[in-house]
């Protein structure tokens, strides 16, 4: 997970005012509560180490050397007869303090430089960004070894240097967090209302980056303990203080005599770091407010619609279509009992406000509903075959070959990693079983047909190199490339400029006339419906409220919802072509 998104999530959740219950959500998560409990026990043990054991951790009693665990020595004794439990507890004290030193240094450096770089930018931002990439390319362990040559085996200095080496992770977090907040309007509002920079930082920015920093800190704490014990394991630590790493090093020298000596400090290290990791994960989950996994299982228990209810004369006949999404232990139905027909060469408009279920209907026809969607009931009969029967295999077979899709947002619907040529030719080579050369030739003809000026150049181009209007033409060319009979278009003009919109509608209309295409056209715009469609299906809250021939529905709407939709879009305005021309004029100005 990148730091930027985490800050964005924190920002969102703080805007929702949910940060207040963050601790509550953290404690309700069993893993989070366990991690906090383990950490609390370890910290308490470290603080009260001298009170918990009667032994001096450095007391050498050669008679007890390699003593097995017993009532006197609960975890046994090491090669010099020192009590292992006493050393583990004292080791906790020093190991945690060492990690704390690293943590404090990392947070102070990262927080201060991140705030300055994010808030003021400029040369400081540039310099600290370069420093960051430099430091991140240095292997910390090697640098710490080099530093030890100069400063000697000092736990605190070593950990402070490590804190500086790992501070870029905090720096990046804070900087991107500050950037996110700065772009939010409320900081501008705060500034306009006369708050000083320090107040803004304290009140808005620190509030947002606080949780991500705690998550990162738990990770850093873990790494610091690992690095510290690694150094000591190499025998480069201060051998006179009993930290967990020194104990591991000592145990390793006696691995053949008593492997158990490696186990206890190792377990202590793994338990501490594990608890830190779990704590970080739980806090992240609490921050993102992850929805619980739906418990819904089994069938919806609806009466099944039979394929015989479909209209045999239609290219596409939908009956009883009902789709839901699992939410807790039930299904939340988003479209219910949808029924309509599309005949050969007919354009059917699916109209409604956002949330009316028109896109869900379109995706159902294509079999492209998002993960988790459940088709509770319904038949979608295409050319005499029920697409939903046979586990959706018929639908998969028809997809791309007989039924094609034109999406809403052209720029995000081409794979940025492949050339347009590749994306056009791959389906043709698969469905039409033609050679690459033949597919390329066909693709160039298609691009020419949809009105692209330099088709050869466009074939070689990547999606980021063409405009939105061109991308939509490419997508339309792709949709018709395998000679489908039915096109499902999901608001194909909404994301485009007004002038381009009219051209795309003209293109779709002429393709329909030329190839006898049937079309399901999803839109919220009655102007487009009047312009292109033969019949219309009006949807509200997942239900079909009215359907019929375009002229009839537009002139004499029966349902109140249709009337209100029409009133809000067409009432008293000029015919659409005039409107378009006027908009185009305004846009040009």
């Amino acid at each position: 997970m990148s730091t930027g998104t985490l800050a964005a999530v924190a920002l969102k959740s703080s805007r929702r005012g949910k940060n207040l219950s963050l601790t509550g959500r953290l404690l309700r998560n069993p893993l989070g509560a366990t991690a906090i409990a383990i950490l609390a026990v370890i910290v308490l043990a470290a603080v009260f180490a001298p009170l918990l054991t009667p032994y001096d951790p450095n007391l050498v009693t050669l008679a007890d050397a390699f003593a097995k665990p017993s009532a006197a020595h609960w975890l046994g004794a090491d090669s010099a007869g020192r009590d292992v439990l006493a050393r583990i507890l004292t080791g906790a004290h020093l190991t945690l303090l060492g990690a704390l030193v690293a943590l404090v240094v990392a947070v102070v450096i990262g927080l201060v430089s991140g705030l300055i770089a994010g808030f003021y930018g400029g040369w400081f931002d540039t310099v600290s960004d370069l420093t960051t990439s430099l430091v991140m390319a240095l292997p910390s362990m090697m640098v710490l070894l080099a530093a030890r040559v100069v400063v000697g085996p000092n736990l605190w200095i070593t950990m402070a240097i490590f804190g500086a080496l790992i501070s870029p992770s905090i720096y990046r977090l804070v900087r991107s967090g500050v950037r996110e907040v700065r772009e939010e309007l409320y900081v501008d509002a705060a500034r306009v209302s006369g708050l000083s920079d320090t107040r803004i930082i304290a009140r808005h920015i620190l509030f947002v980056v606080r949780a991500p920093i705690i998550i990162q800190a738990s990770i850093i704490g873990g790494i610091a303990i690992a690095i510290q014990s690694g150094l000591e394991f190499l025998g480069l630590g201060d051998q006179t203080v009993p930290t967990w790493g020194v104990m591991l090093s000592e145990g390793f020298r006696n691995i053949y005599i008593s492997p158990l000596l490696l186990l206890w400090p190792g377990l202590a290290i793994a338990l501490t770091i594990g608890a830190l990791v779990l704590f970080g994960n739980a806090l992240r989950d609490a921050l993102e407010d992850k929805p619980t996994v739906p418990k819904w299982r089994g069938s919806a228990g609806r009466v099944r619609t039979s394929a015989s209810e479909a209209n045999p004369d239609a290219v596409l006949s939908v009956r009883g279509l009902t789709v839901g999404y699992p939410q807790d232990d039930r299904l939340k139905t988003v479209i219910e009992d949808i029924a309509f027909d599309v005949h050969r060469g007919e354009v059917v408009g699916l109209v409604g406000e956002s949330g009316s279920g028109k896109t869900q209907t379109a995706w159902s026809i294509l079999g492209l509903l998002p993960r988790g969607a459940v088709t509770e009931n319904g038949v979608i009969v295409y050319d005499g075959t029920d697409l939903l029967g046979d586990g959706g295999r018929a639908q998969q077979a028809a997809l791309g070959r007989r039924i094609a899709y034109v999406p809403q947002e052209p720029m995000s619907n081409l794979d940025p990693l492949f050339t347009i040529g590749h994306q056009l030719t791959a389906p043709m080579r698969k469905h039409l079983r033609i050679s690459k050369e033949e597919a390329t030739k066909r693709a160039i003809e298609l691009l020419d047909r949809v009105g692209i000026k330099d088709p050869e150049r466009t074939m070689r181009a990547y999606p980021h190199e063409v405009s939105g209007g061109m991308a939509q033409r490419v997508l339309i060319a792709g949709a018709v490339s395998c000679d489908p009979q039915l096109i499902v278009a999901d608001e194909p003009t909404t994301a485009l400029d007004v002038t381009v919109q009219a051209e795309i509608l003209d293109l779709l209309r002429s393709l329909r006339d030329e190839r006898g295409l049937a079309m399901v056209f999803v839109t919220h715009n009655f102007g487009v419906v009047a312009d292109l469609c033969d019949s219309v299906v009006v949807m509200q809250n997942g239900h079909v409220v009215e359907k019929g021939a375009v002229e009839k529905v537009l002139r004499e709407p029966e349902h109140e919802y249709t009337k209100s939709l029409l009133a809000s879009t067409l009432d008293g305005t000029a015919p659409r072509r005039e409107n378009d021309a006027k908009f185009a004029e305004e846009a040009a100005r």
Partner: protein
Amino acid sequence: MLSFIVRRLIGGVILLFVASSLTFLLMNANSSGIAIRILGDQATQEQIVAKQAELGLDQPLIVRFGHWLAGAVRGDFGTSWFTSEGVLHLVSLRLPVTLSLVVGTVIVTAIIAVALGALAATRRGWVDRLVQVLSVIGAAAPNFWIGLMLVIFFALTLHWFPATGFVPLTESFSGWTASVTLPIVALALGAIASVTAQVRSAFIEVEGRDYVRTLRSRGLGERNVLLGHVLRGAATPALTVLALQFVGLLGGAVVVERVFALPGLGQTITDATTNGDVPLVMGVVVVAVAMVVVVNLVIDIITGWINPKARLS
């Protein structure tokens, strides 16, 4: 593409220069400290001065730096203060061991993390839970401790692998494989955990993008869409994490080499640190940073090859 590679190469050389210069200056700033570290705390003032003169530490820092730099650009990193052998020679003897470990680990990590991450993203369910458990274990257990446990279990108890020692690849492939398997497992576990998590979340993120729905609508087949398009889209962030992991792996290798008594750069720098052998420590640090630069360059080139947009930046 060529200018992209050249720009990355220049950036890498600058990084190498700055990093090694800083290391030199930090290590050499306190020359009497170095002498004391070698002679011990009881050293007299005369002994310290004599040692400094012997090692050339009595000259001004800037002169020594110029001298070191002039040598370094010609590939001469001086001689070890303890064995009087050339630093480059000593390092080149040990490099194959460490390279075997870290490159082997990166390859193993990349393969397993991609497979597991993609599986976890598409299948969810038990694979997903396995990955989550693995990621906590991988993040919690330091790699040298995993190495210790592997030695105790697989080498000392089951005798499946040798506990210590290294067999060069040029000598025997099976011997080399046996000698690096446990160390690579010890190093890879943590790396796999973190790269798998990245692959998984990148895969899920890319699979949810609009163009994946459109690709599916073209009837290209689930296999083609997931492996050809989604995985490729998820590769860029995964490679970034892999490059970061490599830096950490170099440090991990230092300690893991000790566990398995492998004669690699880790042992060289550990001994050199204990002895206060500044030229040798410098040599290992420079080689380590050079390895980071090379690996970053390779990963940048792969990223640029996968992602046409990355070539522009």
